[in-house]
């Protein structure tokens, strides 16, 4: 595929954010994923051309970071936290259940292209364990059943809303655009903070 003039303009605007062009490589990779769903060879070549880098240099960066995918993932990419705390509190059980339920393993995608699975490490929401991320949105306090429902909904095109996030779950590509720094106007949706985040504040107010 080739990139449209409009897409090239967006790339230029991303590059313009930085004092030095090379810094734009990460948002550009996110942007390529927002177009193609993963880091395509065309994307690597275009970024190399734009930043005057060797294609190998772009590859070196894209393969270092786990959010950049070298093959397509599902519209809904499900990350089950299996770092110690989440794993112990149920993440392992969730992972087992959901992979069995979908018949796919780590880094695999359902045949309809809707859902993919990844074992992820700590996602900074331990007070909401066990945590599942879908397209990097928070699904807090999950159970095996809730995640089964989640992926079923996703496959039916009707996933539940994130616990702390927009009212409607956006697709992998749509969220990749946000990571590339392109606003989707949804920052106002969702709670300011979840209950555990506010717990200390609540207690301090009660004590007064």
């Amino acid at each position, binding site marked *: 595929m080739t990139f449209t003039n409009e897409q090239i303009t967006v790339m230029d605007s991303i590059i313009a*954010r930085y*004092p030095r062009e*090379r*810094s*734009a*490589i*990460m*948002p550009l990779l*996110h942007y390529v994923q927002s177009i193609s769903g993963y880091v395509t060879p065309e994307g690597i070549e275009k970024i190399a051309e734009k*930043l005057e880098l060797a294609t190998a240099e772009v590859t*070196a*960066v894209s393969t*270092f*970071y786990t*959010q*950049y995918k070298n093959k397509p993932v599902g519209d809904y990419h499900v990350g089950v936290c299996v*770092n*110690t*705390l989440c794993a*112990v*509190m*149920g993440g*392992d*059980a969730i992972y087992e*259940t959901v992979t069995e339920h979908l018949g796919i393993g780590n880094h695999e995608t359902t045949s309809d292209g809707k859902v993919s699975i990844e074992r*992820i*490490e*700590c*996602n*900074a929401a*331990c*007070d909401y*364990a066990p945590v599942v*991320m879908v397209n990097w*949105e*928070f699904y807090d306090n999950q*159970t*095996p059943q809730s995640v089964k429902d989640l992926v079923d909904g996703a496959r039916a095109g009707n996933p539940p809303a994130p616990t702390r*996030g*927009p009212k409607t779950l956006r697709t992998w590509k749509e*969220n990749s655009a946000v*990571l590339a*720094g392109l*606003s989707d106007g*949804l*920052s*106002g949706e*969702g709670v*300011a*903070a*979840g209950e*555990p*985040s*506010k*717990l*200390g*504040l609540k*207690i*301090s107010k009660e*004590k007064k």
Partner: protein
Amino acid sequence: MTPTTKLMPVLSATWDQDDSFTLEGYTRNKGYAALKKALKMQPDEVIQLIKDSGLRGRGGAGFPTGNKWGFIPQGDGKEHYLVVNADESEPGTCKDVPLMMANPHVLVEGVIIASYAIRANHAFIYVRGEVVHVVRRLQQAIEDAYKAGHLGKNIGGSGFDLELTLHVGAGAYICGEETALLDSLEGFRGQPRLRPPFPAIAGLYAKPTVVNNVESIASVPAIVANGAEWFSSMGTEKSKGVTLYSLSGHVTHPGQFEAPLGITLRELLEMAGGVRAGHQLKFWTPGGSSTPIFTAEHLDVPLDYEGVSAAGSMLGTKALQIFDETTCIVRAALRWSEFYKHESCGKCTPCREGTWWLVQMLKDLEAGKGTEADLEKLLDVCDNIAGRSFCALADGAVAPIISSLKHFRSEYIAHQTNGGCPFDPVASTIFEKASL
């Protein structure tokens, strides 16, 4: 409760307001007033104020923030940069993400004040890429701050210019290491750099750079608004001020507790409703998985930099992960090892090869295939990794292993005698067996 253990919400004070993250909400809560005040001060006065407050880095190392700012050479004719480390990824650590989600503007305001102090005209927030909604909130906050004239040219008529760029990461724990973060921000693989030169001399684009944690920078507006003395009056002798403690795991009510430094786990647990009903505390991390674990005997250790250090661990990010007696220590150590193996950048031998080996040894131990001699070998390999690597990641990798062996050696051996893990993994989950 003694006065020093009282909760003291500062950063988290407005998180229960539905619009706390908006410019409107933030302004209503007296946001950006500190900025006005700071812009009337001389930059060096701001640095002195932060020095006087005793604020120490909240990213784990606890280096005095004002001193870090003071290292930036002034009048050197070079660009200076401020980079906020918002790549929160240390297992157990979950304070910066809710902070940025509920109140991104306090971070933006802190960035502007800090940049003014160090004479930086371009600042960056390097935010973890795996938290889209936080990215949205930061994007909006920055956009709104520009519109309100808090960013851009001639901020508040002060003559001070500042560009703030949000840089979104892409999944690499190592980018929490400040020089790896800088390499990543420059568009390279996020691998740590040789030091010296330190970032204060040659950081981003080889220019003088301050790298600060989110919580550190977010603490700045309140210090400017309320004075150094207000801040330094809280906490302990060398660990001043308030901070966010994150309780997670097998507690009745996990969550964020903002309190003066020096509070104990016993006090925090009390507020969190204790260990979950019917269970007892087995082990916990004081500051994330890279800090040696504690047990019930450490309940009264004052959680400040000195107190935790004296007890043999590190305050780190104050990420208190609580595990009860249903949790297998070998499984916990293995999982953490798998994390470090996954996150090792690959640059240096002991970390890259060591974490690979540790995972294999721990897997064998968990499966009951390890002997006493294997524990000695495990410890010796840890000794060959610790303090031998390029950065501190590998030190973190061996911390849970060495400390868990110290406290629970017999449990490792029990796996061998039992022919496998003697624990029921279901018992440690928070849901009933029936829901499986």
